[in-house]
Protein backbone atom coordinates (compact mmCIF):
# COMPACT_ATOMS: atom_id res chain seq x y z
CA UNK A 1 0.00 0.00 0.00
CA UNK A 2 1.11 3.50 -0.75
CA UNK A 3 1.31 5.67 2.37
CA UNK A 4 -1.09 8.57 2.72
CA UNK A 5 1.73 11.10 2.50
CA UNK A 6 2.97 9.53 -0.69
CA UNK A 7 -0.57 9.48 -2.06
CA UNK A 8 -0.91 13.19 -1.40
CA UNK A 9 2.26 13.77 -3.35
CA UNK A 10 1.00 11.61 -6.22
CA UNK A 11 -2.25 13.59 -6.19
CA UNK A 12 -0.24 16.79 -6.58
CA UNK A 13 1.73 15.26 -9.44
CA UNK A 14 -1.49 14.14 -11.12
CA UNK A 15 -3.13 17.51 -10.72
CA UNK A 16 -0.29 19.66 -11.97
CA UNK A 17 1.03 17.49 -14.79
CA UNK A 18 -2.54 17.14 -16.08
CA UNK A 19 -3.32 20.82 -15.76
CA UNK A 20 -0.28 21.88 -17.73
CA UNK A 21 -0.65 19.36 -20.53
CA UNK A 22 -4.42 18.89 -20.90
CA UNK A 23 -5.08 21.70 -23.38
CA UNK A 24 -2.22 20.55 -25.62
CA UNK A 25 -3.14 16.90 -25.24
CA UNK A 26 -6.70 17.69 -26.31
CA UNK A 27 -5.27 19.40 -29.37
CA UNK A 28 -3.03 16.39 -30.07
CA UNK A 29 -5.90 13.94 -29.67
CA UNK A 30 -8.24 15.97 -31.89
CA UNK A 31 -5.68 16.56 -34.65
CA UNK A 32 -4.47 12.96 -34.32
CA UNK A 33 -7.93 11.64 -35.14
CA UNK A 34 -7.90 12.57 -38.86
CA UNK A 35 -4.17 11.76 -39.03
CA UNK A 36 -4.95 8.12 -38.20
CA UNK A 37 -6.80 8.01 -41.52
CA UNK A 38 -4.41 10.23 -43.39
CA UNK A 39 -3.79 7.74 -46.23
CA UNK A 40 -7.50 7.13 -46.71
CA UNK A 41 -8.30 10.86 -46.62
CA UNK A 42 -5.39 11.57 -49.00
CA UNK A 43 -6.66 8.98 -51.49
CA UNK A 44 -10.17 10.30 -51.18
CA UNK A 45 -9.23 13.96 -51.75
CA UNK A 46 -6.62 13.15 -54.37
CA UNK A 47 -7.03 14.58 -57.85
CA UNK A 48 -4.01 12.66 -59.17
CA UNK A 49 -4.28 11.19 -62.65
CA UNK A 50 -4.55 7.39 -62.54
CA UNK A 51 -1.46 5.34 -63.36
CA UNK A 52 -1.11 3.98 -66.88
CA UNK A 53 -2.42 0.42 -67.14
CA UNK A 54 0.61 -1.73 -67.91
CA UNK A 55 1.39 -5.44 -67.47
CA UNK A 56 2.39 -6.30 -63.88
CA UNK A 57 5.92 -7.31 -64.82
CA UNK A 58 6.74 -4.05 -66.63
CA UNK A 59 10.27 -3.11 -65.48
CA UNK A 60 11.10 0.15 -63.76
CA UNK A 61 12.14 3.11 -65.88
CA UNK A 62 15.61 4.56 -65.45
CA UNK A 63 15.90 6.75 -62.33
CA UNK A 64 18.61 8.89 -63.94
CA UNK A 65 16.14 10.00 -66.58
CA UNK A 66 13.64 11.10 -63.94
CA UNK A 67 16.35 12.99 -62.06
CA UNK A 68 17.39 14.64 -65.31
CA UNK A 69 13.80 15.71 -66.02
CA UNK A 70 13.60 17.21 -62.52
CA UNK A 71 16.90 19.08 -63.01
CA UNK A 72 15.82 20.47 -66.36
CA UNK A 73 12.55 21.74 -64.94
CA UNK A 74 14.26 23.38 -61.95
CA UNK A 75 17.90 24.18 -62.75
CA UNK A 76 18.09 26.45 -59.68
CA UNK A 77 17.30 23.57 -57.30
CA UNK A 78 19.33 20.60 -56.10
CA UNK A 79 18.08 17.03 -55.82
CA UNK A 80 17.32 16.12 -52.21
CA UNK A 81 16.30 12.50 -52.65
CA UNK A 82 14.73 9.95 -54.94
CA UNK A 83 12.05 7.82 -53.31
CA UNK A 84 10.88 4.53 -54.81
CA UNK A 85 7.49 3.35 -53.54
CA UNK A 86 6.80 -0.34 -53.06
CA UNK A 87 3.01 0.06 -52.83
CA UNK A 88 2.32 1.96 -56.00
CA UNK A 89 4.34 2.33 -59.22
CA UNK A 90 5.54 5.69 -58.01
CA UNK A 91 8.89 7.47 -57.87
CA UNK A 92 9.13 10.82 -56.09
CA UNK A 93 12.03 13.20 -56.66
CA UNK A 94 12.40 15.75 -53.85
CA UNK A 95 14.20 19.01 -54.61
CA UNK A 96 15.49 21.82 -52.38
CA UNK A 97 16.95 25.29 -53.07
CA UNK A 98 20.14 24.05 -51.33
CA UNK A 99 21.10 20.74 -49.67
CA UNK A 100 20.60 22.09 -46.16
CA UNK A 101 17.53 24.26 -46.85
CA UNK A 102 14.48 23.89 -44.65
CA UNK A 103 12.30 20.96 -45.65
CA UNK A 104 9.21 23.17 -45.99
CA UNK A 105 10.94 24.64 -49.07
CA UNK A 106 11.08 21.24 -50.77
CA UNK A 107 9.16 20.59 -53.97
CA UNK A 108 8.25 17.09 -55.07
CA UNK A 109 7.98 15.65 -58.56
CA UNK A 110 5.98 12.47 -58.87
CA UNK A 111 6.78 10.07 -61.72
CA UNK A 112 5.24 6.88 -63.01
CA UNK A 113 7.88 4.32 -62.05
CA UNK A 114 7.41 2.28 -65.22
CA UNK A 115 7.10 4.93 -67.91
CA UNK A 116 9.30 7.54 -66.23
CA UNK A 117 6.65 10.11 -67.10
CA UNK A 118 6.17 13.12 -64.82
CA UNK A 119 2.68 12.85 -63.32
CA UNK A 120 2.48 15.69 -60.85
CA UNK A 121 4.48 18.42 -59.25
CA UNK A 122 3.85 19.41 -55.64
CA UNK A 123 4.86 22.95 -54.71
CA UNK A 124 6.81 23.61 -51.47
CA UNK A 125 4.82 23.54 -48.25
CA UNK A 126 6.01 27.08 -47.52
CA UNK A 127 4.35 28.52 -50.65
CA UNK A 128 1.36 26.33 -51.46
CA UNK A 129 -1.95 26.59 -49.67
CA UNK A 130 -2.03 23.96 -46.96
CA UNK A 131 -4.35 21.00 -47.26
CA UNK A 132 -6.51 19.93 -44.33
CA UNK A 133 -4.13 17.07 -43.53
CA UNK A 134 -1.10 19.42 -43.76
CA UNK A 135 -2.68 21.68 -41.12
CA UNK A 136 -3.54 18.73 -38.84
CA UNK A 137 -0.03 17.34 -39.20
CA UNK A 138 1.72 20.62 -38.46
CA UNK A 139 -0.49 21.28 -35.42
CA UNK A 140 0.09 17.73 -34.22
CA UNK A 141 3.82 17.62 -34.82
CA UNK A 142 5.13 21.09 -34.03
CA UNK A 143 2.36 23.74 -33.73
CA UNK A 144 3.86 25.36 -36.86
CA UNK A 145 7.01 26.10 -34.86
CA UNK A 146 9.49 23.54 -36.26
CA UNK A 147 12.06 22.14 -33.84
CA UNK A 148 11.08 24.28 -30.82
CA UNK A 149 7.48 23.21 -31.37
CA UNK A 150 8.49 19.55 -31.58
CA UNK A 151 10.46 19.78 -28.35
CA UNK A 152 7.64 21.63 -26.62
CA UNK A 153 5.04 19.04 -27.62
CA UNK A 154 7.53 16.32 -26.63
CA UNK A 155 7.66 17.90 -23.16
CA UNK A 156 3.85 17.99 -23.04
CA UNK A 157 3.91 14.29 -23.97
CA UNK A 158 6.25 13.59 -21.05
CA UNK A 159 3.84 15.41 -18.71
CA UNK A 160 1.00 13.31 -20.11
CA UNK A 161 2.99 10.14 -19.35
CA UNK A 162 3.60 11.42 -15.80
CA UNK A 163 -0.10 12.25 -15.47
CA UNK A 164 -1.03 8.75 -16.63
CA UNK A 165 1.40 7.04 -14.24
CA UNK A 166 0.24 9.16 -11.29
CA UNK A 167 -3.35 8.45 -12.33
CA UNK A 168 -2.63 4.72 -12.13
CA UNK A 169 -1.20 5.12 -8.61
CA UNK A 170 -4.28 7.09 -7.50
CA UNK A 171 -6.71 4.66 -9.08
CA UNK A 172 -6.74 2.04 -6.30
CA UNK A 173 -7.73 4.25 -3.34
CA UNK A 174 -10.55 5.77 -5.39
CA UNK A 175 -12.15 2.52 -6.49
CA UNK A 176 -11.31 0.13 -3.66
CA UNK A 177 -14.95 0.09 -2.50
CA UNK A 178 -16.54 -0.46 -5.90
CA UNK A 179 -16.69 -3.31 -8.33
CA UNK A 180 -14.69 -2.77 -11.49
CA UNK A 181 -16.08 -0.16 -13.82
CA UNK A 182 -19.10 0.73 -11.73
CA UNK A 183 -20.48 4.18 -12.61
CA UNK A 184 -22.58 5.61 -9.79
CA UNK A 185 -24.87 7.57 -12.06
CA UNK A 186 -27.54 8.17 -9.41
CA UNK A 187 -25.13 10.17 -7.26
CA UNK A 188 -23.90 13.68 -8.08
CA UNK A 189 -22.68 14.59 -11.54
CA UNK A 190 -19.21 14.84 -10.07
CA UNK A 191 -19.24 11.26 -8.76
CA UNK A 192 -20.56 10.05 -12.08
CA UNK A 193 -17.78 11.77 -14.00
CA UNK A 194 -15.17 10.61 -11.51
CA UNK A 195 -16.28 7.02 -12.06
CA UNK A 196 -16.23 7.47 -15.83
CA UNK A 197 -12.78 9.06 -15.62
CA UNK A 198 -11.56 6.05 -13.62
CA UNK A 199 -13.23 3.52 -15.90
CA UNK A 200 -11.92 5.04 -19.13
CA UNK A 201 -8.46 5.62 -17.69
CA UNK A 202 -8.13 2.13 -16.22
CA UNK A 203 -9.19 0.38 -19.42
CA UNK A 204 -7.05 2.39 -21.82
CA UNK A 205 -3.97 3.09 -19.66
CA UNK A 206 -1.62 0.74 -21.53
CA UNK A 207 -2.55 2.17 -24.91
CA UNK A 208 -2.26 5.75 -23.62
CA UNK A 209 1.20 5.02 -22.19
CA UNK A 210 2.44 3.39 -25.40
CA UNK A 211 1.11 6.15 -27.66
CA UNK A 212 2.37 8.81 -25.22
CA UNK A 213 5.90 7.44 -24.92
CA UNK A 214 6.24 6.73 -28.66
CA UNK A 215 4.89 10.22 -29.40
CA UNK A 216 7.64 11.73 -27.23
CA UNK A 217 10.27 9.64 -29.03
CA UNK A 218 8.90 10.77 -32.41
CA UNK A 219 9.19 14.40 -31.34
CA UNK A 220 12.87 13.77 -30.65
CA UNK A 221 13.58 12.48 -34.16
CA UNK A 222 15.44 15.60 -35.33
CA UNK A 223 17.86 15.73 -32.36
CA UNK A 224 18.36 11.94 -32.52
CA UNK A 225 19.29 12.04 -36.20
CA UNK A 226 21.56 14.98 -35.50
CA UNK A 227 23.38 13.06 -32.76
CA UNK A 228 23.80 10.14 -35.15
CA UNK A 229 25.08 12.39 -37.91
CA UNK A 230 27.58 14.09 -35.58
CA UNK A 231 28.92 10.81 -34.17
CA UNK A 232 28.51 7.65 -36.25
CA UNK A 233 28.19 9.20 -39.70
CA UNK A 234 31.08 11.59 -39.05
CA UNK A 235 33.29 8.67 -38.03
CA UNK A 236 32.35 6.70 -41.14
CA UNK A 237 33.12 9.51 -43.54
CA UNK A 238 36.30 10.56 -41.72
CA UNK A 239 38.59 9.31 -44.55
CA UNK A 240 36.82 11.69 -46.96
CA UNK A 241 37.22 14.72 -44.74
CA UNK A 242 39.87 16.51 -46.76
CA UNK A 243 38.47 15.76 -50.21
CA UNK A 244 36.53 18.46 -52.04
CA UNK A 245 32.76 18.04 -52.00
CA UNK A 246 31.53 16.64 -55.34
CA UNK A 247 29.74 19.06 -57.67
CA UNK A 248 26.32 18.02 -59.03
CA UNK A 249 27.86 17.19 -62.42
CA UNK A 250 30.41 14.91 -60.74
CA UNK A 251 27.79 12.68 -59.14
CA UNK A 252 27.63 9.10 -60.36
CA UNK A 253 24.44 7.48 -61.62
CA UNK A 254 21.51 7.21 -59.18
CA UNK A 255 20.24 4.16 -61.01
CA UNK A 256 23.60 2.48 -60.53
CA UNK A 257 23.61 3.35 -56.82
CA UNK A 258 20.14 1.82 -56.57
CA UNK A 259 21.24 -1.36 -58.41
CA UNK A 260 24.50 -1.68 -56.46
CA UNK A 261 22.68 -1.69 -53.14
CA UNK A 262 20.03 -4.09 -54.40
CA UNK A 263 22.70 -6.54 -55.44
CA UNK A 264 24.73 -6.13 -52.25
CA UNK A 265 21.69 -6.64 -49.99
CA UNK A 266 19.41 -9.14 -51.76
CA UNK A 267 16.89 -9.46 -48.88
CA UNK A 268 16.34 -5.73 -48.60
CA UNK A 269 14.21 -3.32 -50.61
CA UNK A 270 15.71 0.05 -51.55
CA UNK A 271 13.30 2.81 -50.57
CA UNK A 272 15.24 5.98 -51.29
CA UNK A 273 18.52 7.49 -52.37
CA UNK A 274 19.42 10.70 -50.51
CA UNK A 275 21.83 12.96 -52.35
CA UNK A 276 25.11 14.16 -50.78
CA UNK A 277 25.27 17.18 -48.51
CA UNK A 278 21.92 16.90 -46.75
CA UNK A 279 21.35 17.64 -43.08
CA UNK A 280 21.70 14.06 -41.88
CA UNK A 281 24.06 12.47 -44.37
CA UNK A 282 27.57 12.95 -45.70
CA UNK A 283 28.68 15.56 -48.26
CA UNK A 284 30.55 12.83 -50.18
CA UNK A 285 28.02 10.01 -50.22
CA UNK A 286 24.72 8.84 -51.48
CA UNK A 287 22.75 7.71 -48.45
CA UNK A 288 20.61 4.81 -49.59
CA UNK A 289 17.79 3.71 -47.28
CA UNK A 290 16.78 0.07 -47.35
CA UNK A 291 14.20 -1.93 -45.47
CA UNK A 292 13.48 -5.59 -44.82
CA UNK A 293 10.56 -7.63 -46.08
CA UNK A 294 8.87 -8.92 -42.91
CA UNK A 295 6.22 -7.02 -40.95
CA UNK A 296 8.75 -5.79 -38.40
CA UNK A 297 11.87 -5.40 -40.55
CA UNK A 298 9.89 -3.41 -43.12
CA UNK A 299 9.76 -0.75 -40.36
CA UNK A 300 13.48 -0.97 -39.62
CA UNK A 301 15.30 1.12 -42.16
CA UNK A 302 19.03 0.63 -42.66
CA UNK A 303 21.20 3.08 -44.53
CA UNK A 304 24.02 2.27 -46.92
CA UNK A 305 26.68 4.82 -47.87
CA UNK A 306 27.99 4.92 -51.43
CA UNK A 307 30.79 7.10 -52.67
CA UNK A 308 28.88 9.69 -54.68
CA UNK A 309 31.72 10.14 -57.21
CA UNK A 310 32.52 6.53 -57.98
CA UNK A 311 29.20 4.92 -57.03
CA UNK A 312 31.07 2.28 -55.02
CA UNK A 313 29.58 0.93 -51.83
CA UNK A 314 31.42 2.40 -48.83
CA UNK A 315 29.61 0.83 -45.91
CA UNK A 316 26.39 -0.78 -44.73
CA UNK A 317 25.57 1.25 -41.64
CA UNK A 318 24.54 -0.35 -38.36
CA UNK A 319 21.82 1.76 -36.82
CA UNK A 320 22.30 2.78 -33.19
CA UNK A 321 19.71 1.64 -30.63
CA UNK A 322 18.12 5.07 -30.28
CA UNK A 323 17.28 5.26 -33.97
CA UNK A 324 15.95 1.70 -33.89
CA UNK A 325 13.74 2.79 -30.98
CA UNK A 326 12.57 5.74 -33.08
CA UNK A 327 11.75 3.46 -36.00
CA UNK A 328 9.72 1.07 -33.84
CA UNK A 329 8.00 4.07 -32.25
CA UNK A 330 6.54 5.24 -35.52
CA UNK A 331 4.03 2.43 -36.18
CA UNK A 332 3.20 2.16 -32.48
CA UNK A 333 2.29 5.83 -32.46
CA UNK A 334 0.56 6.02 -35.87
CA UNK A 335 -1.44 2.77 -35.62
CA UNK A 336 -0.98 2.23 -39.33
CA UNK A 337 0.38 -1.31 -39.22
CA UNK A 338 -2.68 -3.53 -38.95
CA UNK A 339 -5.10 -2.56 -41.66
CA UNK A 340 -8.19 -0.39 -41.46
CA UNK A 341 -9.72 -2.20 -38.43
CA UNK A 342 -6.64 -1.28 -36.36
CA UNK A 343 -6.99 2.36 -37.45
CA UNK A 344 -10.64 2.36 -36.39
CA UNK A 345 -9.68 0.89 -32.99
CA UNK A 346 -6.95 3.56 -32.75
CA UNK A 347 -9.51 6.29 -33.39
CA UNK A 348 -11.90 4.88 -30.77
CA UNK A 349 -9.11 4.65 -28.18
CA UNK A 350 -8.18 8.22 -29.08
CA UNK A 351 -11.80 9.27 -28.42
CA UNK A 352 -11.66 7.45 -25.06
CA UNK A 353 -8.52 9.44 -24.22
CA UNK A 354 -10.31 12.68 -25.15
CA UNK A 355 -13.04 11.65 -22.71
CA UNK A 356 -10.45 10.98 -19.98
CA UNK A 357 -8.94 14.43 -20.54
CA UNK A 358 -12.33 16.11 -20.68
CA UNK A 359 -13.64 14.40 -17.57
CA UNK A 360 -10.39 15.19 -15.75
CA UNK A 361 -10.78 18.83 -16.66
CA UNK A 362 -14.40 18.79 -15.47
CA UNK A 363 -13.34 17.23 -12.15
CA UNK A 364 -10.80 19.98 -11.66
CA UNK A 365 -13.22 22.75 -12.62
CA UNK A 366 -15.83 21.45 -10.17
CA UNK A 367 -13.17 20.95 -7.51
CA UNK A 368 -14.31 23.70 -5.17
CA UNK A 369 -16.90 21.51 -3.62
CA UNK A 370 -14.59 18.55 -3.35
CA UNK A 371 -10.89 18.95 -4.14
CA UNK A 372 -8.87 15.78 -4.76
CA UNK A 373 -7.08 16.20 -1.39
CA UNK A 374 -10.40 16.30 0.46
CA UNK A 375 -11.64 13.21 -1.35
CA UNK A 376 -8.43 11.38 -0.47
CA UNK A 377 -8.72 12.39 3.20
CA UNK A 378 -12.33 11.20 3.24
CA UNK A 379 -11.43 7.87 1.73
CA UNK A 380 -8.60 7.37 4.18
CA UNK A 381 -10.77 8.35 7.14
CA UNK A 382 -13.25 5.69 6.08
CA UNK A 383 -10.59 2.96 6.12
Amino acid at each position, binding site marked *: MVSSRALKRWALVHKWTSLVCTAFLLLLCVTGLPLVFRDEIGDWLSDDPPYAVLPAETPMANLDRMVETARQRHPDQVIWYVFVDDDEPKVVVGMLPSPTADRTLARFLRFDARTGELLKEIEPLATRSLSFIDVMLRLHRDLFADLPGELFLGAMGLLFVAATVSGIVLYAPFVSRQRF*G*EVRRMRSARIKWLDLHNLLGA*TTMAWAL*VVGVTGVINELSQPLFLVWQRTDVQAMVQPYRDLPVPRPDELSSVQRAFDTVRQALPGMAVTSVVFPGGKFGSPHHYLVWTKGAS*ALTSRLFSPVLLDARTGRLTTVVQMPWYLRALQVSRPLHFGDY*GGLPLKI*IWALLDLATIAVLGSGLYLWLSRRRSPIEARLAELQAAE
Partner: protein
Amino acid sequence: MSDLRRVWSWPLALAGLTVFGLLSALLGEGGVWWGLSWLSLVMPLGAIVFCVVRSWS
Protein backbone atom coordinates in the same frame (compact mmCIF):
# COMPACT_ATOMS: atom_id res chain seq x y z
CA MET B 1 -10.51 -12.04 -2.89
CA SER B 2 -8.04 -9.49 -1.65
CA ASP B 3 -8.66 -5.80 -2.26
CA LEU B 4 -5.56 -5.52 -4.37
CA ARG B 5 -6.60 -8.30 -6.68
CA ARG B 6 -10.16 -7.04 -6.94
CA VAL B 7 -9.00 -3.55 -7.91
CA TRP B 8 -6.27 -4.52 -10.31
CA SER B 9 -7.25 -7.78 -12.01
CA TRP B 10 -9.37 -6.17 -14.75
CA PRO B 11 -7.12 -3.18 -15.53
CA LEU B 12 -4.07 -5.45 -15.66
CA ALA B 13 -5.81 -8.05 -17.83
CA LEU B 14 -6.87 -5.31 -20.26
CA ALA B 15 -3.36 -3.83 -20.23
CA GLY B 16 -1.96 -7.28 -21.01
CA LEU B 17 -4.40 -7.70 -23.91
CA THR B 18 -3.49 -4.23 -25.18
CA VAL B 19 0.24 -4.99 -25.19
CA PHE B 20 -0.38 -8.34 -26.86
CA GLY B 21 -2.58 -6.69 -29.49
CA LEU B 22 -0.06 -3.94 -30.21
CA LEU B 23 2.78 -6.43 -30.64
CA SER B 24 0.94 -9.17 -32.51
CA ALA B 25 0.23 -6.90 -35.50
CA LEU B 26 3.77 -5.51 -35.35
CA LEU B 27 5.66 -8.79 -35.08
CA GLY B 28 3.22 -11.20 -36.75
CA GLU B 29 3.03 -11.60 -40.50
CA GLY B 30 -0.49 -10.34 -41.20
CA GLY B 31 -3.33 -12.86 -41.41
CA VAL B 32 -4.23 -14.42 -38.09
CA TRP B 33 -1.94 -12.05 -36.15
CA TRP B 34 -3.88 -9.04 -37.40
CA GLY B 35 -7.12 -10.73 -36.40
CA LEU B 36 -5.74 -11.49 -32.92
CA SER B 37 -4.52 -7.91 -32.66
CA TRP B 38 -7.95 -6.46 -33.48
CA LEU B 39 -9.65 -8.87 -31.12
CA SER B 40 -7.41 -8.09 -28.15
CA LEU B 41 -7.35 -4.32 -28.74
CA VAL B 42 -11.12 -4.17 -29.00
CA MET B 43 -11.39 -5.69 -25.49
CA PRO B 44 -10.70 -2.43 -23.57
CA LEU B 45 -13.35 -0.71 -25.71
CA GLY B 46 -15.72 -3.61 -25.09
CA ALA B 47 -15.08 -3.34 -21.35
CA ILE B 48 -16.01 0.37 -21.41
CA VAL B 49 -19.25 -0.32 -23.27
CA PHE B 50 -20.08 -3.24 -20.99
CA CYS B 51 -19.50 -1.28 -17.76
CA VAL B 52 -21.42 1.77 -18.97
CA VAL B 53 -24.38 -0.31 -20.16
CA ARG B 54 -24.36 -2.28 -16.88
CA SER B 55 -24.38 0.90 -14.81
CA TRP B 56 -27.16 2.47 -16.83
CA SER B 57 -29.48 -0.51 -16.85
